[in-house]
């Protein structure tokens, strides 16, 4: 099975050459509001993070965990199983094969995490039977012929398995509820449980070095376990961390931990049995995965909707370099769940495509990040002036020159925009987007923030107002609910004590 997925040509070519292309609203913007079709905004800087190649399509793929093995990039997809691509020519990703693991019971192939045993030419992949089913299984794939992947066995587990790691002849599994489970890897698909250590919370990822394993507990901790006796793993240390840790990567005497909404942490393993936090860098999104490029010193973070790059060459600090919003292909927000690295090559993806980036550590540039990325203005009657705050942050390494603001029509303007000034790295400026409401019609427009950002010289912010439904500035419908303990809750009563946040969710 050697299908070649459709290539996104022109835009990727421009981006790959590091040219700031602003001919249309950059991928990742909300397509329902057409962004201005303008000429390029040239920059004196070269982009430190460039797109090398990308493959995507209209199908929903839900890229998750990724791992590099030689010139092969492996990734798990929640929809299309375990995938292998060749990147020996980074600008020409070549599809090798795909396998939808199953145990013969017609389970949905929700490949979640993977671990590559390069010497043994095997890949282990975890899967779930359904969205949040407590039962999951580990599939063993013969990868000796990457263009003809073969499932050679599976192990059904009562626990929900998350991250896994190959460590010598061991397979380590991070599970919800059962903690760390240690298997001996035998010939073929043989996996023999040796021991386990429970009581670690909801552990999401495991990595090992020597006789120690490190796991992240989403309850807020980095856990150190002694594997000297694999049949009796023992807890050594627990380091409290903020946020909801989901991933980690080791680099000798240090570790990088993705902390969810708390950002990313640099942890010292100078004393490997007593890790200590060195630094925490916040990220605007939710840091779900990390990868480190040893040759480039780049730390790469899957930050919910963006890829974020940090300079980690200093052993004692990590410094923001820039970000890349992951494109959505068919529009809407993306979901960036995984990242992998081969030195200066970065692999990430979203729901629709795999993207290969290159980090250029010799380049320094400004990087404009704007919040919100989509401006939903309050509802307004004719004659009303409605407003929303825009915050622009320079997440790059050089001063960001703020130039003009362009708008889709005369009803929009941006006040307090410091045109002609430079924003220092790490600094932010707040401006106010205003609209003089002419009528009650549903409105869709845009503003372009013009700067010398080499990647997004015209950063488009789609704007909507007076859309159907309850909008910002309008009264929320009074509601009542019954919680899972049978308690009655009413919005009117709840808001007497303060604001109420309704967080609509699904469990997939």
């Amino acid at each position, binding site marked *: 099975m050697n299908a070649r997925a459709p290539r996104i040509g022109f835009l990727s070519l421009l981006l790959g050459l590091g040219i700031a292309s602003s001919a249309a609203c950059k991928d990742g913007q909300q397509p329902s509001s057409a962004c201005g079709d303008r000429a390029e905004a040239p920059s004196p800087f070269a982009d430190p993070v460039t797109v090398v190649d990308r493959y995507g399509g209209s199908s929903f793929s839900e890229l998750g965990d990724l791992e590099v093995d030689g010139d092969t990039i492996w990734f798990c997809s929640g929809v299309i199983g375990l995938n292998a691509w060749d990147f020996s020519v980074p600008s020409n990703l070549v599809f090798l094969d795909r396998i939808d693991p199953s145990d013969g019971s017609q389970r949905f192939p929700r490949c979640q995490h993977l671990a590559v045993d390069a010497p043994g030419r095997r890949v282990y992949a975890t899967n779930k039977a359904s969205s949040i089913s407590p039962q999951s299984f580990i599939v063993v794939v013969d990868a000796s012929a990457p263009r003809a992947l073969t499932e050679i066995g599976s192990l059904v587990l009562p626990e929900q398995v998350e991250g896994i790691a190959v460590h010598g002849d061991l397979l380590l599994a991070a599970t919800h509820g059962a903690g760390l489970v240690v298997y001996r890897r035998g010939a073929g698909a043989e996996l023999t449980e040796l021991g386990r250590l429970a009581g670690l919370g909801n552990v999401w990822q495991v990595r090992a070095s020597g006789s120690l394993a490190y796991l992240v507990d989403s309850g807020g901790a980095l856990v150190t376990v002694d594997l000297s006796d694999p049949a009796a793993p023992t807890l050594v240390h627990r380091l409290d961390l903020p946020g909801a840790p989901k991933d980690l990567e080791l680099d000798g005497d240090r570790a990088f931990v993705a902390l969810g909404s708390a950002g990313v942490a640099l942890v010292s393993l100078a004393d490997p049995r007593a890790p200590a936090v060195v630094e925490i860098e916040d990220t605007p999104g939710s840091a779900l995965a990390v990868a480190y490029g040893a040759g480039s010193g780049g730390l790469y973070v899957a930050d919910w909707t963006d890829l974020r790059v940090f300079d980690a060459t200093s052993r004692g600090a990590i410094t923001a370099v820039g970000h890349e919003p992951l494109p959505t292909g068919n529009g809407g*927000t993306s979901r960036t769940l995984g990242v992998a690295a081969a030195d200066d090559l970065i692999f990430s993806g979203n729901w629709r495509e795999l993207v290969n980036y290159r980090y250029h550590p010799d380049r320094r540039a400004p990087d404009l990040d704007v919040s919100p990325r989509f401006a939903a203005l309050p509802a307004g009657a004719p004659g009303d002036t409605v407003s929303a705050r825009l915050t622009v942050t320079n997440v790059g390494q050089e001063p960001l020159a703020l130039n003009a603001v362009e708008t889709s029509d005369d009803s929009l303007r941006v006040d307090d925009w410091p045109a002609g000034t430079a924003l220092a790295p790490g600094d932010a400026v707040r401006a106010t987007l205003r609209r003089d409401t002419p009528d009650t019609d549903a409105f869709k427009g845009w503003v372009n923030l013009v700067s010398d950002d080499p990647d997004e010289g015209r950063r488009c912010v789609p704007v909507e107002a007076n859309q159907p439904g309850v909008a910002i500035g309008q009264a929320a419908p009074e509601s009542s609910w019954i919680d899972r303990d049978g308690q009655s809750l009413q919005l009117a009563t709840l808001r007497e004590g303060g604001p109420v946040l309704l967080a609509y969710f699904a469990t997939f």
Partner: protein
Amino acid sequence: MHLTYRDQGLTVLGVATGGFDESEATLDAFAEQTAVTFPIVHDSATYQLFSWPPALSPFPRQVLIDQDGVVRYLASEHRPAELDAAIREVLGLSR
């Protein structure tokens, strides 16, 4: 977010709309695995009433309602920094 601002008066409700036929066991497992600290409720009606910004996925969605019952923040994607800023603004806290 809930733990950060709970003592300052923020109430958080996790709202399951049932759009994906999630069972009670599924919700229980989800609550346990994610260690949520706030109530989870079922509500398939109010989701349809808001003017959501366009997004590829129907979830997560967030609505922040102030003490006067006015919508102050609407999001079709989880952006912690933006949500935090909105909460702080409604609570009258400095940035």
